[in-house]
Each structure stands twice: as structure tokens, then as C-alpha cells.
């Protein structure tokens, strides 16, 4: 009896071992957290075909939108941890807990690859009475309650950038006009509905180059080759060095508990795919900074990002719950 049982266990171990060795033995579901045509969607759809080739399998990408991406995150978290359902997401889940949007974040996932990071940029309507970041700050202080800033809801890039500006320059008396994404907000900016918009470089760069809007300042520590003449906020005020570099990011994630071999295979595939010349050219042309990190390096990046951003928002009074409640330590502690 015991021998049979041992045999069965051995056979079972053997088959599971084989299954892993053969991964992927069926198509992989890639759940994209944002809608078709958005930044996350475009990045994922341009890197994944390269990864498919290396993996020798098929990745079926599906857009699952809703509740700031929480629907997609919960879907992958509820699926089996077998590497056949992966999450393709952006930075938002790191703020779900403190924003009261959900009780899960990327700590429940293993980063397969953090592909790239965006750089925030402050852009303004062409008719705005200021041309650089420093002029804007001066104008806002002289004309309280007049300048309209675009925003994309609590926890979105504009809210973080604004919190940063207020932390460094003191409170700004401006009107925040909410939009449901940076695309519609930049459209509103060109039509004069708002004056200033903090947006990711990639979304605004073509408009700036064409002269449809003007770049006030890059929210970064060094100038960018794509827009060499644009002022960098850290040059203007030293205080920014505490928070920068900062930016939204895109990554592929597998649920915690996925077999190590599977994670290794996926990681290797995406790491190689992210070095593909076409993909690199694509990302650089759009002003994204390639990261291509995984494993411990990615984990460290994620927790540093979360600490910095969560506490910044907490100090700005924009959170629903303190990061402390979720064990997110203040940076530097």
C-alpha cells in the first residue's frame, strides 16, 4: 500500500515536473489593466510579440478596465498561480490601499519585468501668461485662484506631481479640473479649458514639438535629450532632489506562488524581448526610460516607489488611509 502511494506521489511529482519543464503548454492570458489604445496597452502590445517568440507560446492579451485597474488586478489575483494568467499593469495598484480602492497591491505579485518608466512634464496652453516652470510658480503666487490645473483623480500622476510641487514650493492656490485620463485633459488644454497639465512626457511630446502646447518644465533631475531646451525643476529648486527621479511605470506581473521555473522562464523571455531594437527605439522615441528590471531589483524599486509616493500623498492630505496602517514605512526610516 505504502509503496503504491509512494509510486503515485513520485509519478505525480514527475508529471508536474514535466509540465513545468514544458511551460507554456497552453496559451497564456495577459490581462491589460487599461483600455485599448492607452499607454499601458501600447507598451504591452509592442513588447509581448517579441516575448512570445522567445517563449515559443501564445500570449492572448485582453483589456480589462474598470475601477482604476482594480478589476484586472483582482481577476489575476483570483486566478491560479500557474503562470497562465499574468497581469500587465501600471503604477496605480501601489496606491490602492491608501486611496481606499482595494486591499491588494503588487506585493501579492512577483514582478516579471518592470519595463519602463515615464518622466512627468508640466505643459501649458500656448496663451498662458508664463513660459517656464519658474514663471508659472511666480504667476500662481501673484494670481491666487486663477490658474486651472488638469488632474486625473486622486493618486493619478497629476495629483502626485502637484503634491510634490506643493511640498517643495508651498501651497498653490489653483483650481483643479478633473479629467478621466491625460489624453482628454491634454485635449482640453489645447482648447483652453485648462491652463497647466502635469502629464507623462510620452503623451505630450508630439504636441510640444508641433507647437500646440508649451513645455514649462520637466519633473526630473536632468534634462532630456528629446526636449533639451526645457527647464528641469530640480535646477530651479533643490528641494525636488528628495523626491526625484519619479515616474509612472509599466510592468508584467505573475501572482505570488507561481512555480519558480515558470517565473524564470517568463522573466528570461521578457528580459530579452525588452532589449529588442524595435521596442527600444519605440520607447525612446516616446520619451520613456527603459528599465528592464526583474527579481529583487524590481521588488526594491516597487517598495521604494510606494514608500515615496504614499507618504508624499499622505503629507499632502490626499489619502483616505495612512500608509502606516498597511506597513508602508516612511522613506528613510
Amino acid at each position: 500500500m505504502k509503496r503504491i502511494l509512494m509510486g503515485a506521489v513520485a509519478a505525480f511529482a514527475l508529471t508536474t515536473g514535466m509540465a513545468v519543464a514544458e511551460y507554456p503548454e497552453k496559451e497564456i492570458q495577459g490581462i491589460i489593466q487599461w483600455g485599448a489604445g492607452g499607454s499601458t496597452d501600447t507598451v504591452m502590445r509592442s513588447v509581448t510579440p517579441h516575448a512570445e517568440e522567445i517563449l515559443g507560446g501564445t500570449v492572448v492579451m485582453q483589456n480589462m478596465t474598470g475601477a482604476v485597474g482594480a478589476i484586472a488586478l483582482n481577476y489575476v489575483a483570483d486566478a491560479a498561480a500557474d503562470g497562465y494568467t499574468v497581469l500587465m499593469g501600471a503604477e496605480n495598484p501601489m496606491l490602492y490601499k491608501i486611496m481606499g480602492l482595494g486591499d491588494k497591491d503588487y506585493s501579492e505579485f512577483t514582478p516579471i519585468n518592470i519595463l519602463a518608466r515615464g518622466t512627468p512634464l508640466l505643459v501649458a496652453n500656448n496663451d498662458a501668461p508664463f513660459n517656464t516652470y519658474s514663471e508659472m510658480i511666480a504667476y500662481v503666487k501673484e494670481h491666487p485662484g486663477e490658474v486651472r490645473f488638469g488632474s486625473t483623480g486622486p493618486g493619478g500622476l497629476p495629483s502626485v506631481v502637484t503634491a510634490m510641487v506643493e511640498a517643495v514650493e508651498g501651497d498653490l492656490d489653483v483650481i483643479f479640473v478633473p479629467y478621466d485620463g491625460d489624453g482628454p485633459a491634454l485635449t482640453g488644454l489645447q482648447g483652453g479649458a485648462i491652463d497647466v497639465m502635469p502629464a507623462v512626457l510620452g503623451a505630450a511630446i508630439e504636441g510640444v514639438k508641433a507647437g500646440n502646447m508649451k513645455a514649462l518644465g520637466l519633473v526630473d533631475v536632468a534634462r532630456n535629450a528629446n526636449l533639451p531646451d526645457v527647464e528641469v525643476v530640480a535646477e530651479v529648486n533643490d528641494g525636488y532632489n528628495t523626491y526625484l527621479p519619479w515616474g509612472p511605470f509599466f510592468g508584467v506581473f505573475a501572482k505570488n506562488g507561481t512555480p519558480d521555473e515558470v517565473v524564470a522562464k517568463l522573466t528570461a523571455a521578457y528580459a530579452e524581448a525588452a532589449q529588442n531594437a524595435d521596442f527600444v527605439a519605440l520607447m525612446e522615441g516616446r520619451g520613456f526610460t527603459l528599465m528592464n528590471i526583474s527579481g529583487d531589483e524590481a521588488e526594491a524599486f516597487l517598495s521604494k516607489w510606494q514608500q515615496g509616493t504614499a507618504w508624499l500623498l499622505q503629507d499632502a492630505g490626499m489619502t483616505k488611509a495612512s500608509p502606516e496602517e498597511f506597513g508602508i514605512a516612511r522613506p528613510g526610516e
Partner: protein
Amino acid sequence: MQIDPEHHDGTSDATPGGEPDKRRPGELLFAAFLTVASLYLVWDAWGIENSFGPNGLSSPRSIPLATTVVMVISGALVLLRTARLPLDRTETVSKDILPWTVIVFAGLLVAYGMALRPIGFLPVSAAFLIIGIKVLGRRSWVWTISIALAALVAIWLIFRIVFSVLMPAGIVPEAELVQFFRTLFSGGAE
């Protein structure tokens, strides 16, 4: 087209039946339900609070509150008007509103919804089509099953293979099957 003079033809969009000056069976109950539900929604809309800002004119509450108030007013008007109409005695609930086929199909749809996730798209849909076509068509089992399966295969091929819509697989190892054929075909191509 045949129009049943006693029982109105039920095919046009807005008014599948009923006469404008008479109340259909169950109509009053439906109007009352809508009004009560609207009242509840007003209360729910009042409870919407903006956790990140002021609750003024621009709050997430304003439009829901306005629309639910419109719902209550219009719903109550409809209720009053319906109550004043005389009941249409020529119609009955079981014949004109909820004949047994409708109840059977509503039941089938509910069962479909409940079974979809645990059992999976293919078996549940096959069962649904076979039962549905059998109940309505009253034709032979062979005819029923072959029509149902042919339709299901066509739908599955279009949605699953062409459009990669991954309906819940349930107990059927769909993905493995697809991969098997994929390798078969790619193997054959080389």
C-alpha cells in the same frame, strides 16, 4: 403577416401590446415597483460622498441626485396615471405577459448564469441550446442536437479562435486543446 386581432402583435419596439386607454395585468405593480425603487435610489444617491473633496455642485453626488429625483417624479406620475386606467379584462398574466415559455427561458438563462463559471462555456451552452431548441421546436433529438452543436461550434470558432474571447473554460481543458491543434498545425507547416 398575421395579426391576432384579440391579442396584439408583439413585435414592434415600443408597444408590444396593450391599448393606450387600458391597464395591462401587472402594469400597476411594475409602476409601483419602479417608483419605490427610484425612492430608494434617491436615498442612495444622497449618501454618495466625495471622500477627496467638497460636496458642492461639482461633487459626484449632484447628477445622480438630480436624475433619481426625476425618476421619482416621472415614476410617480406614471403610477398615478396607470392607477386611473381601467384594467384590461381581455388579457391575463399567464397568456399575455408571462406565458410558460418565457418563464422556462428566464429560468434557463438564470441557470446558465449560475453554471457558467463552475462548469464552463462549452458544456453549459450546449445544454442550453439543446434544451431551448427542443422545447421550442419539438423536433427529433438528432435534428435538435446536430443544429445546436453546429451553431455552438460556429460561435466558439468565431469568438474563441478568431477574437480570442476567453469564456470561462470550467471543466473543459479548452486552452490545452487549442494549443494541441496549434502545435499540430505549426508542426505540419514546417
